[in-house]
Structure formats: C-alpha cells, structure tokens
C-alpha cells in the first residue's frame, strides 16, 4: 500500500504542478520587474531594459518552485505513509532508535562530552571563544525552553535576564570589587528576582498578550540601560570587567578563555542535569499541565499564579548566571548586547530545536550560533542562507529538529524513587 503513495509522491511532473510553478514564475517576474529589469542610467538619462534578467528570474523561480513542490509532495507522501502504516510499518526517528538502544545513546553522549572537554586543547583561542558564546546560548535556550517548551508561556524579552546577570557582575565588581565566583550565584538570583517582579503583573496574560508585554519589558530594559547614565554608564557601557580566575592565579588571555570555556561547559552540564530532574518531577509535570489546560489544572488544585511564578523563577535563573559568565568573557558590556534581536534569536533556537526538548534546545542553539560563524566565507549571503535553513527546517520538521518525547512515568518499576521525586 505504501507503493502507490510513494509513486504519487515521486511523480516528477504533473500538469497542475507545471501550472502552479509557471504562475509563481510569472508573479516573481512581475514583482521584481522594477528593480531587476528597469535600470535608469543617470549619466545618459536613458532607461536600460534588461530583459535577460527577467528571463533568468522566471526560469529560476520556476525551477525552485518545482523543486519545492517535489519535496513537499515527498513529505506529504511520507506523512500519509506513516498514517496508513499505523503500528505495523512505523518509521522510527533517530531519537526513538537511540532510545531503544540506550548503550549506543550513552556512548554517543560520552563521546560528545569527551570531544567537548578536549575542544579548547585542540583548537585555537578564537574557536574556543566562539564555542563559549555558543554554549552560553545553549544555556539560554535551555532556560527559555522551561518557559516556552515546558510551561507554554510565550515570553519574548528573555535576553533581559541575561543582561541583568551581566550588569549585576559588572556593577558589583565596579563598586564593590566582587569577584566572578561570588557574582555567579548573585547574578542568577538577581535575574530570578527581576523575573518574578516582571511575572507578577503579567500573571493574568496569556499567549500573544504575554509575548507583547514581555517584549515591551525587554525594550524598556534596554532603553533604561542606555539612558540611566549614573547606573549603567549608558551606551558606552562598562569596560575592564575582570575575566574569571581560579585559586587567585594570574592567567593570561588564552588561559582565561580556556577556563571560561570549562566554566561554561560545566554550567551547561549542571543546567541539563537540573532541567532533566525538573522535567521528571511533580513541579515539572505541573508546568506541563498548565501548558496543556489551565482550567483542568486549576480544577486539580494547581494554582496558576504560583505555577507561573515558578516557571519564571526556574527559567530566568539560568539566563542570569549565563549573563555573569558573558560579562566575564567579554570584559566589556553595553546595552547593545541585549537587544530584542537577541531575544528572538534564542526563541528561534528553541523552536528550531524542538519545543520542550533538551537535546533540541542544545542542537538549535549550536546551529544558530555556529552556522553564521562558519558561513562567514559567504559574507553577505550568510543571513540569507541562515534564513533559508530556518524556513526549510520549519517546513520539513515542524516540531523542530529533535522533538520532545515526554519521559514516561514508570510507576510500577520504581515506585520508591518516583514517589520521592513527586514530592
């Protein structure tokens, strides 16, 4: 039965497809006409008609649209195959295959870990520095994932909490000489407090409204930083923030970078561990319950207000700590590091990777931070390629690269441990 549908999916040309593609080609030719065909020569005051361009655009958009349609057919064919197949011919995703072979999955993750640990030793300082940034975004994506993926709260100004952490360290150090290690937890806790303060007025908002209000908070934060010169030194920012050191050693830049790398790596591991525990705990499940149905949750005695505050607190802490590390890494911060664009970038990471999925957030963050870095060779086209990659992933993997599979609750197998976690 799967034969017929794959045949359908594989058919290369049908009349309907040609019609559609031709229409799209015509439309694009029309749209691009003013910029691609007409060229005013200001020296001779003449108009050049570049008809060749029009033909190129027509042909290119026809081919692209056709290839696109072909892939879409394939995808839809695959979907209907899966539906028809039911339990018998269920295709396994990579994730499911790995879940079935825990040994492979385990050794794979150890391999990645070893690679991550030796990374700064085998690569230069520049690469290490890029990787630090990437790992900081991994933490941000994991933290935002608690809010968006797990709790279903669409919060857009998440980078604010990163900024709070960074400024906490910078200012505490400037005024009181507080060192990196002391600032680390303070930055996290301070971000958490700001998170709760922002959460209180928006407790009753949902969906789009929550997104808009938190976006506004993000902008307010940046504007305040830019204008409150006495506190934040405005757009000129704060410089000479000390890099992290250890045992009071005097490290050179390269050593400090390596140290920062290991701090971030350790912090990523801690974050993953804690969030994994959270997902399997009763608090984590109440966040999922809130995301799924607020009324049912309330009927079960789960207080929506408290649960939202918990989600904010649990999520913003990580951004705060990451912010402290960021300030220590760059030694200079100013408001332009904490713009709306950054918030949206972190959101993209979560969505691209797969909402609510830990490996998804990690992969999403790595792709979005590293891809533009390594696409530098393509200079001005890199953002276009980046955009195309995002669109492609969303079309072909709408649930993200690694969609979440909620861990099953095995009551019978290990009742003791589960009951303890449940508390």
């Amino acid at each position, binding site marked *: 039965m799967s034969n017929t549908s794959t045949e359908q999916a594989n058919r290369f040309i049908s009349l309907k497809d040609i019609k559609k593609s031709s229409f799209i080609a015509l439309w694009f030719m029309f749209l691009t006409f003013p910029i691609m065909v007409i060229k005013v020569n200001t020296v001779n005051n003449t108009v050049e008609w570049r008809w060749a361009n029009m033909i190129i655009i027509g042909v290119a958009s026809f081919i692209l649209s056709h290839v696109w349609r072909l892939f879409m057919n394939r995808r839809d064919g695959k979907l209907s195959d899966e539906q028809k197949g039911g339990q018998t011919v269920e295709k396994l995703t990579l994730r499911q295959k790995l879940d079935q072979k825990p040994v492979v999955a385990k050794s794979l993750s150890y391999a990645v870990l070893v690679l991550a640990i030796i990374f700064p030793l085998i690569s230069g300082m520049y690469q290490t520095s890029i990787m630090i940034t990437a790992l900081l975004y991994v933490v941000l994506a994991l933290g935002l994932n608690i809010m968006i993926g797990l709790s279903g709260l669409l919060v857009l100004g998440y980078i604010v909490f990163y900024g709070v952490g960074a400024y906490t360290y910078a200012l505490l150090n400037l005024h009181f000489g507080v060192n990196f290690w002391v600032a680390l937890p303070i930055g996290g806790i301070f971000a958490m407090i700001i998170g709760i303060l922002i959460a209180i007025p928006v407790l009753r908002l949902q969906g789009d409204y929550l997104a808009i209000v938190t976006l506004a908070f993000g902008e307010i934060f940046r504007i305040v930083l830019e204008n409150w010169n006495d506190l934040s030194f405005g757009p000129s920012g704060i410089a000479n923030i000390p890099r992290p050191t250890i045992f009071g050693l005097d490290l050179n830049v390269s050593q400090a970078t390596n140290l920062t790398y290991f701090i971030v790596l350790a912090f990523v591991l801690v974050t993953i561990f804690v969030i994994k525990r959270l997902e399997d705990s*009763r608090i984590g*499940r*109440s966040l*999922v*319950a809130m995301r*799924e*149905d607020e*009324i*049912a*949750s*309330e*009927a*079960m*005695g*789960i*207080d929506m207000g408290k649960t939202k505050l918990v989600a904010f607190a649990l999520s913003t802490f990580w951004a705060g700590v990451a912010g402290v590390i960021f300030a220590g890494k760059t030694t200079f911060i100013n408001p332009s590091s904490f713009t709306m664009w950054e918030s949206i970038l972190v959101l993209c990471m979560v969505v691209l990777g797969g909402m609510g999925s830990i490996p998804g957030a990690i992969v999403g963050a790595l792709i979005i931070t590293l891809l533009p870095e390594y696409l530098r060779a393509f200079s001005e086209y890199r953002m276009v390629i980046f955009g195309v990659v995002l669109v492609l992933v969303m079309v072909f993997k709408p649930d993200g690269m690694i969609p979440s599979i*909620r861990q*099953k*609750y*095995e*009551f*019978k197998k290990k*009742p003791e441990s589960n*009951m*303890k976690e*449940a*508390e």
Partner: protein
Amino acid sequence: MLKIENLETFYGNIQALKGIDLHIEDGEIVTLIGANGAGKTTTLMSISGVVPPRNGKIILNGKDITGTAADDIVSMGLIQVPEGRRIFSELSVAENLDMGAFLRNDAAEIKRDMEYVYQLFPILAERRHQHGGTLSGGEQQMLAISRALMAKPKILLLDEPSLGLAPIIVQQIFDIIKKINQEQGTTVFLVEQNANQALKIAHKGYVMETGRITMSDTASNLLADDEVKKAYLGI
C-alpha cells in the same frame, strides 16, 4: 454538606447565573439537569472557585468558601471533573493521576488510591504509560474521573460525564459513579443533559433554565413529572 444561596455569576456584564439556591446533603447524589447554555457549567465553575461569583454564598460543611482560591477549595475536598474531560494529553495516564494528587504529600496513600482507581477502571492500569491524548473518549472520561478521585474528594462535581460517549460506555460510567458514592461515601453533584440516566442514579434533582433553578424535587418525582418528561426525557 454543600449549600448555595442566591449565587450570581457574570461573564463581563452578561449574567450567567441569576440567583441560584442548591442544597446537597452528605452522601447524596444530586443531579442538575438543563439544556445547553442554561448555566450548569458556570454553576460548577463558581462553586469550585475557577470563575468567582459576584453575589451569593457558597457554604461547604458550614464554612463560607465564597471567594476562596480554587486550590484551597480543592484541598478542602471539593473536586470538579470539568466538562469535556480536559485530561492532560501529553502526560501519561499515571502522570495525569499524579496531577490529581497534586496537593497531597502522603506517598503511601497516593499509591493506594492509585491502585484503587486502577481497580475501578482496569483499562487505565493497562494503559498507565500511554499518553492521555491517545486514549479513546470513554477512557479519557474514566481518566478524568480517576484523576479527580486521586484528590480524595469528599464531594465530587461532575460536568456532563456522558457527553459524546456511546450508550454502553455511558452506562458503565454511571455505574461507577454510583459505586464511588456507595463504597466511598463520596457525595456527588452530577451535572447532566442526559436527564434520564442521571435521575435514575440520583437521590435528588434540580432543573435549570437560563440561569435559574426552575424545579427541585426527589429524582423519582422528577422522573415522573410531566413537564420534565416533555422537556428533558423526550417522552
């Protein structure tokens, strides 16, 4: 056990409840019947604190609970099974049940209660690791009831448990409701459009029309009443 006096609830400036009085004794099954849009769901939502009433009094075991937060009301043993089941589809059956016990910390007893509901609905035990969303409608209703039972209700509020279910499943669900009432002594307040079935297992019934109670009597009297027969039993 539960006494409601002159309850008025608004959605914005639309008045959904226009002064309701209800009286539910300990250990009873009381049913509230009425057509679509009569205000039955609103009544339950007001009682359980999800949609707070504007006027009136809700007295649970002699204590005025009007305006009390929903989670506090749950911890007093008044639990609602909301209309349309509203189970958590991405949580497994066992996790759904655990959410029902959200306010409890007595691990051993939670486990015992879980075994009890698995006994009531063996199909749930079979499907305990399955996600709630993959259950059939009947199974979801069983899960919704079980989830509420996990909260150790003294009084259970059920909103149209028969909605959209096959007659044979409806029969099964009503049998279980009766069983819970008899075995556990749980007081049941049953909202239904399926008046015939509801009145058969209930001790007492109320009839509701556009935000008002229009009739109240013993279930058997209502079953025999001409007007009820005409309007709600289709006889």
